[in-house]
């Protein structure tokens, strides 16, 4: 491996740790990021000449700290510089041990602080803890890079100026504050999924990074059942990833997936986590969503999917965390256990303006309309679903469904026409 490849690898491994550690002490997230960025740049320039240092993380930390001090000489008071200097000579940065405290959990709580606009929580996490570039975040959130960059800059300025503390909240606030962290992480996971289709093979997988963060939270907050619930939920979905695409790269829906392709290791880990979470007896959104996936996973062991149980779980989910996604999942489960007519009635109850541009809504609607033999409406629903599909494989899958609806409609129309002609012929023959 070349020096620059090693530098990049080290960078990926310890970027978030360095930023979190420096930001927690210096309380300026943007400055910490700049300093770590500069240190990485310096490494890429220096290491190919001098060789890779024995403890690359410690090397990067030292350089980043000096950058912070240089920068603060220009901008800050003597008092603050003294503070940074004590940071540099403090034992936390002892280069012989190469160990400095992991402050990433604190940084996650800062990113998802209620004083920060909720739409920036996930982008902030992706950028500061995982080092994902702004352009990539912007494209995952369908926002212009300049707009995303502006939002991130503003949020970081607020963190600094309003004095948002780098601390894990106290027990009485912890559950509520953790909910925001987990919700933001789940959004990041969704963004990672969106990316998989058009993934750049050179980039590290965003989904893996998010999973890794979820594991970190479970490890650092072992008593929080929702953290385990979220990790279990992600693992259930990840376990099915190899089965989501056929060898020719077409999309395979859950009901048609080959369960032999599901990762048994991940499913087992998810089950263990969910069981451990349930023993705390503090139910929440992520445990419910994981339980729904667990019911689907029954098929992996030759069992049947208990649709009635899934309906009840969705009812619970709709009580604690109502969303369009949960309403659609509920309707789909009702279709399986009580019939498509009932499910279509449930879809009618969802306010139209919330689903007008929502691909999963139109896809489900098309599917249900086909089940009740209304191919023309199904055709129209699939058309709308395709318009709002980003993922090419899913678009192709829906196009197949659309063609099916179209064929059925025309077959029936032609059949009716043929019958008309027959009848007309008979009438003409008679006189």
């Amino acid at each position, binding site marked *: 491996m070349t020096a620059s490849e090693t530098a990049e690898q080290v960078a990926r491994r310890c970027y978030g740790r360095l930023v979190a550690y420096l930001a927690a002490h210096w309380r300026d997230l943007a400055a910490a990021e700049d300093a770590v960025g500069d240190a990485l740049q310096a490494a890429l320039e220096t290491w190919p000449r001098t060789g890779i240092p024995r403890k690359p993380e410690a090397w990067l930390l030292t350089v980043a700290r000096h950058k912070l001090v240089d920068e603060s000489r220009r901008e800050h008071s003597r008092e603050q510089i003294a503070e940074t200097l004590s940071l540099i000579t403090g034992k936390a940065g002892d280069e012989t041990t190469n160990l400095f405290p992991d402050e990433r959990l604190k940084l996650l709580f800062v990113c998802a*602080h209620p*004083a920060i606009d909720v739409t920036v929580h996930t982008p902030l996490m992706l950028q500061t803890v995982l080092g994902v570039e702004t352009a990539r975040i912007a494209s995952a959130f369908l926002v212009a890079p300049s707009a995303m960059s502006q939002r991130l800059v503003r949020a970081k300025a607020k963190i600094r*100026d*309003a*004095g*948002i*503390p780098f*601390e894990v*909240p106290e027990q009485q*606030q912890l559950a509520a504050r953790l909910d925001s962290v987990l919700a933001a992480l789940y959004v990041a996971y969704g963004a990672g999924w969106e990316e998989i289709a058009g993934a750049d093979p050179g980039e590290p997988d965003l989904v893996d990074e998010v999973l890794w963060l979820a594991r970190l939270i479970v490890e650092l907050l072992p008593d929080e059942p929702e953290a385990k619930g979220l990790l279990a939920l992600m693992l259930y979905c990840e376990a099915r990833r190899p089965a989501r695409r056929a060898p020719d790269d077409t999309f395979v829906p859950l009901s048609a997936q080959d369960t032999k392709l599901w990762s048994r290791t991940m499913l087992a880990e998810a089950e263990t986590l969910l069981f451990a979470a349930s023993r705390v007896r503090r139910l929440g959104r992520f445990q419910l969503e994981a339980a729904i996936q667990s019911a689907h996973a029954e098929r992996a062991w030759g069992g049947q999917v208990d649709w009635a149980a899934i309906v009840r779980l969705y009812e619970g989910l709709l009580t604690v965390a109502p969303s369009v996604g949960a309403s659609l999942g509920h309707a789909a489960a009702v279709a399986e256990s009580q019939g498509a007519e009932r499910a279509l009635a449930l879809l009618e109850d969802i306010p139209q303006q919330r689903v007008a541009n929502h691909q999963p809504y139109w896809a489900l609607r098309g599917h249900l309309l086909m089940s009740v033999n209304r191919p023309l409406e199904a055709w129209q629903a699939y058309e709308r679903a395709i318009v709002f599909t980003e993922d090419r494989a899913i678009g192709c899958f829906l196009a197949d469904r659309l063609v099916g609806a179209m064929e059925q409609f025309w077959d029936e129309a032609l059949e009716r026409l043929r019958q008309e002609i027959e009848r007309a012929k008979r009438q003409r023959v008679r006189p």
Partner: protein
Amino acid sequence: MRYAILIYESETDFASRTDQDRRERYWAAWRTYTEALNAAGVTRTGAALQSAVTGTTVRMKGNVRQVQDGPYADTKEQLGGVVLIDVPDLDTALDWAARCPAAAYGAVEVRPVFQGAMS
């Protein structure tokens, strides 16, 4: 860090200060809050303001003084008071804001005090 706790109250809340039936409860809540702030030693200063209708807004247009009856912003809830506190971080400031009586009946904004050129 120093923070301003800005207290926003509706016309009814302002009226509670003097209303025969309500004033006792109103001031009791505020007394408890002020005592808690003082006991914790975080207060720098504070003041309750008279109702927004007593406000007068002034602007200089060149050399001409424009004076207008009423508060600067015409909103349902008006600035009713300010408390300046000195606490380590935003979370602590938010804790004090949440304990403020107006958090229950009106709204409370927390703003860090600017510590730049003036100090």
